[in-house]
């Protein structure tokens, strides 16, 4: 139910109301409005620090997801019994990294943030892209979410991995093409 929004950085100005509205819309599309979720905006230094701690990758990235439920089957909503179990987890957005990528590619920052948030939410719901099959499944979901989002808001957002459509490559190769993807998996299981 609660979308906890935190802005822990001062590098990129964040329009909080817009970000909240967009993420709430994404949650509605996915039918997970009743689940709590955290969105934390951080700079390169912090996301690099987190990336290094949890993934041993000492570099900044665009998004890191920390699912509340570790072994969710993609597409199946968590079976929460108690109120405090209605929680999807947290998404760390590397907003400085995203802004830099947007500037290089002349992309709209706010729209890109929504796309990346959609990617992160998919991870919270159990989607992965370790294999080609997983990637295809996740891409399909992202495509659906953003298609619905566009329909509701009049936006023109596309999934992160769009350029890989039809390729027989796995997501790791895709990251080189899409630019916004860094070179490593975004899903972290907190210890």
């Amino acid at each position, binding site marked *: 139910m609660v979308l906890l929004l*935190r802005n822990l950085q*001062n590098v990129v100005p964040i329009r909080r109301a817009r*970000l*909240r*509205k967009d993420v709430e819309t994404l949650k509605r599309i996915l039918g997970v409005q009743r689940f709590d979720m955290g969105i934390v905006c951080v700079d390169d230094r912090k996301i690099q*620090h*987190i990336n290094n701690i949890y993934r041993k990758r000492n570099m900044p990235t665009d998004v890191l997801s920390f699912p509340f439920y570790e072994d969710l089957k993609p597409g199946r909503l968590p079976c929460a019994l108690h109120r405090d179990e209605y929680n999807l987890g947290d998404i760390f957005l590397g907003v400085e990294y995203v802004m830099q990528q947007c500037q290089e590619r002349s992309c709209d920052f706010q729209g890109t943030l929504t796309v990346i948030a959609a990617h992160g939410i998919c991870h919270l719901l159990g989607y992965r892209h370790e294999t080609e099959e997983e990637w295809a499944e996740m891409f399909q979901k992202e495509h659906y979410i953003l298609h619905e989002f566009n329909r509701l808001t009049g936006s023109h957002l596309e999934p992160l991995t769009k350029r890989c459509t039809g390729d027989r490559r796995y997501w790791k190769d895709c990251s080189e093409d899409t630019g916004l993807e860094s070179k490593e998996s975004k899903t972290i299981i907190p210890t």
Partner: protein
Amino acid sequence: MLKSLTRAVNIAARFTNKAPGATVARCAEPLVRSALCAPTSATTARPFTRSIWMMCSGGADRRATLLASKHTLPSCGCGGLHTEGDKAFVEFLSDEIKEEKKIQKTKTLPKMSGGWELELNGTEAKLTRDLSGEKVTVTFNVNNSIPPNMEEEPEQGQKSEDNEPDIVSSPNFVIEVTKKGAKNSLVFDCHFPEDEIGHGEGEEESDIFTIREVSFQPEGEEDWKETSYTLNTDSLDWALYDHLMDFLADRGVDNTFADELIELSTALEHQEYIKFLEDLNGFIKCQ
């Protein structure tokens, strides 16, 4: 979830004031040298030059001894006592002032970016900015602006003054937005949250600053008019809260501003501390 997670992923030491014994010994040297370990070559660190007053509660007897050792009669025309204790106190203060000035980064206060004008009245600072028919005023007071120590005993053998966090002044601040046509000002009571430190690697979980209360108040009034409705953000709709934060960001009060305010407040607080020590020194000396 976020709470536990964010705690776990960052080493945020803003409020973790550890207290290495070596520095304590140095600061307390004139009065409690024998009671603590020998002074080291530790460089000056503000946290403990002050916390000695809290930490050496056991030194009361010693001070009593110093005062009681000689009942000195007034030695000048000021009419006040001049005891051996006073003499030691003045020596201590002189050393303290010297050390504090040594670590003072700059004599001038840091400037706020964004065209804010600074006006000082003792420990109170007022930042003002005019933008297209609106006036934004931010007021804060450096008194009681340093969060209480959440001290942890240093590990044995650890004398690392390098690990000491600096004293940071993070005052509550009040933002007043005045529009020409409006009857009252919109006033925001803001603060810097003091995060709990988690186990292991701590993480700050809160925004850099948060709005605590919002109210309409008569322009320029110092006292908060209690009869005006006050919106408490504890139970506020999150979307409304975000709009309020965006409103402030549009007027130059964002995370960058908050960080700069902490720098300014820290420098001002230090300046006022040194001035207080000098006044105290002068008072004891009675000059």
